[in-house]
């Protein structure tokens, strides 16, 4: 067991390095000058040179990468080109909001997904199954940015029930569980939840149906177990895979909320990234992608380890 854990954990290191290299080279793929974001275009060239020096953009790329990684390891991702603030702080304060949104969306999506998926899996082929499957396919097929717009039209524009943008009346750092803030969370969270809802429904349905077709379920019935007890077995069998899928979905929500955050002006990493792209704010772009990717890598790790714990069949040697 510890060996498996250790190996799995150590495997994160090369991945993290590769990810950091990718993030760094990513922005140097881009045409245009990273300086464009820092100085206004009417700045004379000596000012440009001056700022370039101040930001270290004048050094050779390998040196920039080396410095960047070294500082990143110490938690310093440099300064935003657009506003000069520390990237780390910017990213983490945004990440906090994205996490809030992602958790809310997962709560909705996973709950519905599990319930729907189990029902559909149990009553495979029935009308209920077809209905649920339809909803799930819809969930994974809907362009969520469009769904967001639709919800805004209905609930904000037409009915004026819920706000359409922002994280709340105060700033997100004042966030707390109050209706004033929660109402801001509803639309984006619902919008973001449809994809995980669809994916989880489909996975759980397939898993439940698959497990129910196993001979051991027949054996459980042959033992005289009541359907409720059989269900317990099914759940325990489905759980590792379902959890893994949910973990991944949570990760996808973190990275995938960019469109929804843009639609709802939710002050998270997605909005940060979007702005960074359009302002060509390379330090923020690099930093955000790095942090999100590493977060995702860690999430994968946790999911794998959890799955290994839950499923006795996974090699532990």
């Amino acid at each position, binding site marked *: 067991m510890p060996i498996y854990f250790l190996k799995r954990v150590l495997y994160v290191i090369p991945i993290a390095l590769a990810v950091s290299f990718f993030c760094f080279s990513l922005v140097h793929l881009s045409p245009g000058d990273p300086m464009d974001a820092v*100085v206004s*275009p*009417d700045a004379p060239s000596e000012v440009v040179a001056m*700022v370039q020096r101040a930001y270290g953009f004048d050094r050779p790329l390998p040196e920039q990468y080396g410095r960047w990684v070294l500082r990143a390891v110490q938690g310093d991702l440099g300064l935003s080109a657009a*506003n000069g603030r520390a990237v780390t702080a910017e990213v983490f304060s*945004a990440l906090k909001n994205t996490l809030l949104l992602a958790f809310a969306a997962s709560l909705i999506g996973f709950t519905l997904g599990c319930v729907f998926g189990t029902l559909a899996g149990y009553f495979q082929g029935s009308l209920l199954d077809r209905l649920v499957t339809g909803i799930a396919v819809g969930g994974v097929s809907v362009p969520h940015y469009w769904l967001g717009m639709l919800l805004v039209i209905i609930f904000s524009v037409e009915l004026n029930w819920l706000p*359409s*943008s922002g994280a709340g009346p105060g700033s997100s750092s004042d966030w707390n569980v109050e209706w004033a803030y929660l109402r801001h969370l509803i639309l984006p969270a619902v919008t973001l939840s449809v994809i995980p809802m669809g994916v989880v429904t489909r996975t759980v349905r397939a898993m439940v149906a698959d497990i129910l077709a196993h001979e051991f379920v027949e054996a459980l019935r042959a033992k005289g177990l009541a359907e409720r007890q059989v269900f317990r077995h099914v759940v325990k069998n489905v759980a590792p895979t379902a959890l893994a899928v949910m973990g991944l979905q949570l990760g996808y929500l973190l990275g995938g909320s960019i469109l929804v955050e843009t639609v709802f002006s939710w002050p998270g990493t997605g909005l940060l990234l979007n702005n960074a792209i*359009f302002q060509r704010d390379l330090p923020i772009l690099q930093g955000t992608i790095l942090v999100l990717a590493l977060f995702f890598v860690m999430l994968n790790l946790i999911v794998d380890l959890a799955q290994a714990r839950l499923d006795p069949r996974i090699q532990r040697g």
Partner: protein
Amino acid sequence: EQTLRIAMTASDIPLTTGQPDSGFEGYRFVGYTIYDALINWDMSSADEVSGLTPGLAESWEVDEDDQQVWHFHLREGVTFHDGSDWNADAAIWNLDKVYDEDSPQFDARQAGNVRGRIPSMDGYEKVDDYTISFTTSEPDAWFPYQLTFLLFSSPAQWEALDGDWDEFARQPSGTGPFKLTRLVPRERAVLEPFADYWDADRVPQVDRVELLPMPESSSRTSALLSDQVDWIESPAADAIARMESQGMTITSNPYPHTWPYQFSMLEGSPWRDINVRKAANLAVDREGLETLLGGLMVPAVGTVNPDHPWFGEPEFEISYDPDEARRLLAESGYGPDNPVEIKVLISTSGSGQMQPLAMNEYIQQTFSEVGIELEFEVMDWESLFPNWRRGADHETSLDAHATNITFGWLDPFAAFYRFMHSSMAPPNGFNWGYMDDPEYDRLLDEAKVTFDQEAQDALLAEFHARMVDDAAWLWVAHDVGPRAMNPRVQGFVQAQNWFQDLTPVYIEE
């Protein structure tokens, strides 16, 4: 408690350390609110173009012997928000902050934001505790305009924060009518009145101003409609009817802003033919365009409005006259079978660009009626803007014949000089199309050293008239800076300016 909530178009809270970024919107909301310049804008009137008014300097004059030296007499009895005194030392400290790379308080960001706006600055020194003097690189009558961009932050506060500008951004201290009490990057800035403001007439009426960045115009609109904010900048034109129907106030006023095509005068550009330039100016149905924009524009017949002192008396009268345009084109050998083919760099959006796609397409349509075929190179604002300084012959210009970048013109340098003077060809300035006319250069040079206001205005008027007669650009529109507000917001006077004064605003309960 009165709180005024404003949705800005910026995607982030502009820099609050002194010299803001985010262009003029930054100056509007966190520049002239928290800080003062030596010379401020007078934004009290809605009826005439804003002029200059003494700020942290009570008076100033150019040295009688040397036109490159200016003396400024600082206002006494002014304190920063932190209580420290404003004096010549503080002024020099602030100048070092942006000009002396070796000074401890040097801040590259602020320097980057402001140095380009004061091209004539050459030196500065303290004369006595309340007098400083500047040296300019050449005689420049427009120097006072440039100084409106230099804002003064508190040295004492910076010291207190251990010289950390990042921290200073969170707890800035200036001399302005508002002080910043809260900053949540990307989300919110809170301003509260500075009770000891030196100009008793401009002590703010509201208790709090909250600034919220909302780059999406539909988000701003819905925020206003759902009462999340009281005031939005640049509402979506299409939503104005709806906002009005829900009782919102729409304010607008022309201000020094121009929406042009800046022509390339390089070899091979059709614009080298004056007939084509004139025809283009006559081919645009500016009134139709006004309808398109829901009335939120003023037709432009020159860089400045006809009632402006710099307008002059051009002979070429710009109007919508397709027949005349066709005639001019025919004269140059163009016709329906042989249209003028022109490529223009346009953006999808951008500060001050109004509605670039809609407007350009409209122009494309009216042009085609007279035989000018427009082709667009659509870029995002972030690519178009840097191209401005690179010039028409740069590879990023993609061989275009014109660029469509709007601009504000607060002073003659910004309005004319940087575009029309041959010395401003890339990479020195924004003479994107390599305009090179000795007569332009002469008039501008002369105006620049004419320190008498009326004489200077006369020279500029002559210049402007010549430019219009030349049809040097295609002038299309002036923006009117629309804002939408909740009817509770009262007391706002929309100045004919990029900047606005928030101090008289109050909320009617």
